[in-house]
């Protein structure tokens, strides 16, 4: 008994130290074997169902495929350059202040190697300076406001999807090419960065393409308003040829559910800049003939390529619904990050890259995605441009789903400004340098 006590005293700290060292070593080994990735998307709140959750499902599908090494070439190397991807999902709901804190937690407590995230334009504007201050790598995968790289410069921050300008320029070009009559137009957009920026781009585009068209009602309900009866009366009272909206998610669904029975779309052409994501859920309640964008060549308007077949069919098989823009946009962010990590690893002898090496590899890069080629051409190589498609809705009773027809694809350079030119200035100058159908 007396001889056992000192042994126990010795054994406990020794064992504790041994376990601690083993855990540390294992942690270090894991840190080198895996790439810890923070993924921030709406998992609750009104943006969850149509954007956040499809984005999460898209990320889970792609990360699963990449970790198995079963994605098509050139993405068939396991994980990121052999490093298994270890995702940490965070809910974007809760406002910009909370998101800045959550971003710090991801970098400083979770020790993630990079963060891919953010759907809300307000959140993107708030987190970009925080990542820059911490000197940590951040990809904004979805938000639309053009202001991020037009009003600031970043070293560590990138956006791998085109901003809202292309949505509105493409809508204008589509209407023009289809000879849609626009003598007057009404607008309804949400009262925050996305709604205001979209409206400004659309009005400027209309001034260029339809100089005689007059804007009338200009409604700005708050985000998540839910009740649109008064707005629908205002839109119906000021009869217009076109009703334009950048509403999305639950707001767009509620607006359509309340406006369609009141006949609002019978005498006006409905034009929506980002509506693909509500088609599966609205089904036959979606008005026929609406001109819609998907913020890219996504979903039912995606190109027929092996890469898109892999993603579209794989996602559909896993989730029993076709992928919408949120899923596409996070996929192109993850594939772009994979290209950048592997390029940086090639240059540093196969080691996991630092944020600086990662940023250098990402700048001005290009890669193929299911929705087409992504090119980091704007914002000093930090802001992407990409192709986009616009189409018209029609409910197909045989397929029991909304289909898109009369689809027109636009090249990235046709609907995005050139480098070093602000979007709104480019539109107001008459789209200088735009290349459509291979012609300037």
């Amino acid at each position, binding site marked *: 008994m007396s001889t056992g006590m000192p042994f126990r005293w010795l054994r406990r700290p020794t064992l504790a130290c041994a376990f601690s060292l083993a855990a540390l070593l294992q942690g270090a080994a894991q840190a080198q074997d895996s790439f810890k990735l923070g993924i921030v998307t709406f*998992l609750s*709140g009104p943006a969850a169902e149509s954007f956040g959750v499809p984005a999460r499902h898209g990320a889970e599908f792609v990360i699963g495929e990449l970790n198995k090494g079963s994605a098509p070439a050139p993405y068939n190397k396991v994980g990121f350059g052999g490093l298994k991807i270890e995702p940490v999902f965070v809910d974007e*709901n809760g406002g910009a202040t909370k998101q800045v804190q959550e971003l710090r937690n991801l970098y400083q407590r979770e020790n993630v190697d990079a963060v891919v995230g953010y759907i809300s334009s307000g959140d993107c504007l708030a987190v970009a300076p925080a990542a820059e201050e911490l000197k940590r790598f951040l990809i904004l995968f979805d938000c639309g406001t053009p202001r991020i790289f037009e009003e600031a410069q970043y070293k560590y921050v990138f956006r791998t999807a085109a901003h809202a300008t292309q949505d509105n320029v493409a809508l204008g070009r589509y209407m023009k090419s289809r000879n849609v009559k626009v003598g007057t137009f009404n607008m309804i957009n949400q009262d925050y960065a996305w709604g205001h920026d979209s409206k400004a781009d659309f009005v400027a585009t209309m001034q260029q393409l339809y100089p005689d068209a007059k804007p009338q009602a200009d409604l700005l309900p*708050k985000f998540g308003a839910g009740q649109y009866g008064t707005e629908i009366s205002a839109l119906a009272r000021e009869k217009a040829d076109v009703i334009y909206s950048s509403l999305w998610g*639950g707001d767009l669904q509620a607006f359509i559910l309340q406006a369609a*029975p009141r006949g609002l779309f019978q005498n006006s052409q409905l034009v929506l800049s980002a509506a693909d994501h509500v088609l599966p*859920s609205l089904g036959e309640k979606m008005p026929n003939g609406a001109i819609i964008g998907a913020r890219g060549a996504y979903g039912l308007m995606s190109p027929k390529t092996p890469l898109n077949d892999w993603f579209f069919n794989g996602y559909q098989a896993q989730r029993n619904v076709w992928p919408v823009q949120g899923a596409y946009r996070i996929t192109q962010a993850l594939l772009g990050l994979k290209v950048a990590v592997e390029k940086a690893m090639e240059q540093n002898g196969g080691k996991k890259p630092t944020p600086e090496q990662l940023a250098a590899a990402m700048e001005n890069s290009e890669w193929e995605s299911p929705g087409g080629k992504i090119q980091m051409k704007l914002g000093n190589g930090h802001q992407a441009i990409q192709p986009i498609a616009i189409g018209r809705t029609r409910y197909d009773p045989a397929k029991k789903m909304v289909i898109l027809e009369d689809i027109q694809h636009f090249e990235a350079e046709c609907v995005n400004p050139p480098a070093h030119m602000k979007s709104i200035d480019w539109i107001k100058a008459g789209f200088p340098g735009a290349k459509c159908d291979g012609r300037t």
Partner: protein
Amino acid sequence: MALAATIVVDGLIYASWLFVVALGLTLVFGVLQILNIAHGSLYAVGAYAAASAVGLFASLGFAPVFSLLAMLLAAMAVALILGPILERGLLRLFYGRGEVVLLLVTYALFLILEDAVKLIWGVNPYYVSEPYQLFGNVAIGPLFYVGYDFALVVLAILCGAAVWFGLNRTAVGKIVLAVIHNHEMSASMGVNVNRVHWMAFTFGVFLAALGGAFTAPMISVQPGISVSVIIVSFAVVIIGGLGSVEGAAIGAVTVGLARAAAVHLLPEAELFSIYLVMAAVLIFRPEGLFQRAAARKI
């Protein structure tokens, strides 16, 4: 003239929706002195329950008109299940600890219910638009309205009249008013104050759930619908005076008309118009339009 009529109609439709929800909020405050932030979540639960109930009725082969009954039963079920559980099982434990503590408790409850809704119904939207088509369309001047919107106005009037009649013309109502005026004196006169508490809270839950249930056909029912309604409802009860039924009615109509006028005449000021009215009322009557200033008990 046509514009004025449109503003009035739009304002009254919006006010009717708001009134049903705000009525429950003000009733609970009047009886229990609880500013119930979870009221918005109970509205959402009502909407989800109605979506499920309407779907169930349809699958059982009931005619579409019975969907209204399904929505009513859903709201009653939510109230009868959640009302007593929340009041007896949670809120009662914090009575006497100050209004701020109870405010925080209801905020916690709001967060819990938000997640509970996601656990039960998931994050995918529910659609129950069939009842929205039941009453056809109504033409007012050059504009078409959905008849269902006017059914909501009738529902709001019925709710307001029932609560007013119940409080002012029935024995139970007199007892509730006695508790509102003085808990301790009522208890000493033999009133079962605890029973009044849970009954009033349950009725408040019913009104919140009823508001959600009858809103469900107009929206896609999905996570997040509870937030906007609770903020505007607070504005309504503050304008009318916390705890006042008449105040909630006048507050709802004021907010509805102010918002409708702003949307038609100055859309940029839509949100501002609601809070401008609230600020104006608070400047001149800090206790609200229908609340008498009372001496503080020491």
